[in-house]
């Protein structure tokens, strides 16, 4: 039998090491590949040619300008309601005085004389109670009755 070098021995025997890896190995590879594989939606965005992207951006800009200018010129809700309602007829308030009218106005002025000018209210002193002139206490008048209870009033009626 021909003698073999140890290197040849290993070269010829190396195929014996070919063994399938464990079952979950492909799953690990698949998960990694799915993570790297671009989705359809992402691919469509990434594959957009540069000129098309510029055109799309320009179209968006134009659209935004048009929308904002339309919103700016649009009448407000109040303006809208005024536009919808019936037009206001402004009444002519100018009075032309005839002979009889002038007489009537003079009579009214006589029957309703102008009130005398009232005295301006003087400022009171600090720390005092504000009350009307009619409410001011007078020594001649009886003191202001005190508010009593129903029971006191009943006793008073009984004594009478």
């Amino acid at each position, binding site marked *: 039998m021909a*003698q073999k070098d140890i290197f040849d021995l290993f070269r010829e025997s190396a195929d014996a090491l070919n063994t399938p890896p464990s079952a979950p190995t*492909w799953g690990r590879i698949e998960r990694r590949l799915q993570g790297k594989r671009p989705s359809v939606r992402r691919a469509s965005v990434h594959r957009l040619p540069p000129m098309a992207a510029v055109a799309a951006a320009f179209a968006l800009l134009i659209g935004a300008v048009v929308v904002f200018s339309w919103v700016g010129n649009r009448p407000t809700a109040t303006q809208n309601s005024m536009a919808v309602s019936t037009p206001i007829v402004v009444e002519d308030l100018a009075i032309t005085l005839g002979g009889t009218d002038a007489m009537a106005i003079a009579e009214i002025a006589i029957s309703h004389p102008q009130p005398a000018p009232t005295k301006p209210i003087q400022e009171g002193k600090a720390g005092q109670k504000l009350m009307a002139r009619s409410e001011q206490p007078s020594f001649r008048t009886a003191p202001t009755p005190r508010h009593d209870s129903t029971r006191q009033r009943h006793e008073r009626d009984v004594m009478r």
Partner: protein
Amino acid sequence: MTEHERIVACQQQHPTAQREVYERYAPVMMGVCRRYLSRIEDAEDVLVESFCKVFEHIGQYNGNGSFEGWIRRIVVNECLMFLRKKHALRNAYEIQEHFDLRTEEHTVDKLAADDILYLLDQLPNGYRTVFNLYVLEGYKHREIADLLEISINTSKSQLILAKKRLQELLQDIKYPGIQARMRQATSD
């Protein structure tokens, strides 16, 4: 589906074609990973990383050379990268001794898978890597030196030491039939 059609489909990221490529080459590439790495978990991690790179860069495969060879190069590079990350290749050093290996030959016809793994697992990472690259991948010492960032002489030294260690191990474990064959070889 032919090999070319499968590759084209993979370039279009077709999942079924990717699965077919994996099922076809995964056992061979797992064997490659196992030769470089002792732990089966590490080998599977590197295999996952390698196939992800294969499918990610399959557009760069231009049809020159075999597709299996292209995948194998990626797998080997990933194994080396893994070993570098683990600082497993730091202890490679150059020897000054000279071994006459021509007299150290064996008469074993084939090694079983478990024995290959056992023998490789007994080697230090430096010996093992150079041995794999030179003997089983067919790289030259200059290429190995570039890949591992070592000198050419260090690569040669590592290979000689690997061979010597493997011979000793084969004799120590009394590999089935090896004693009889060695006796037969001496009587002849």
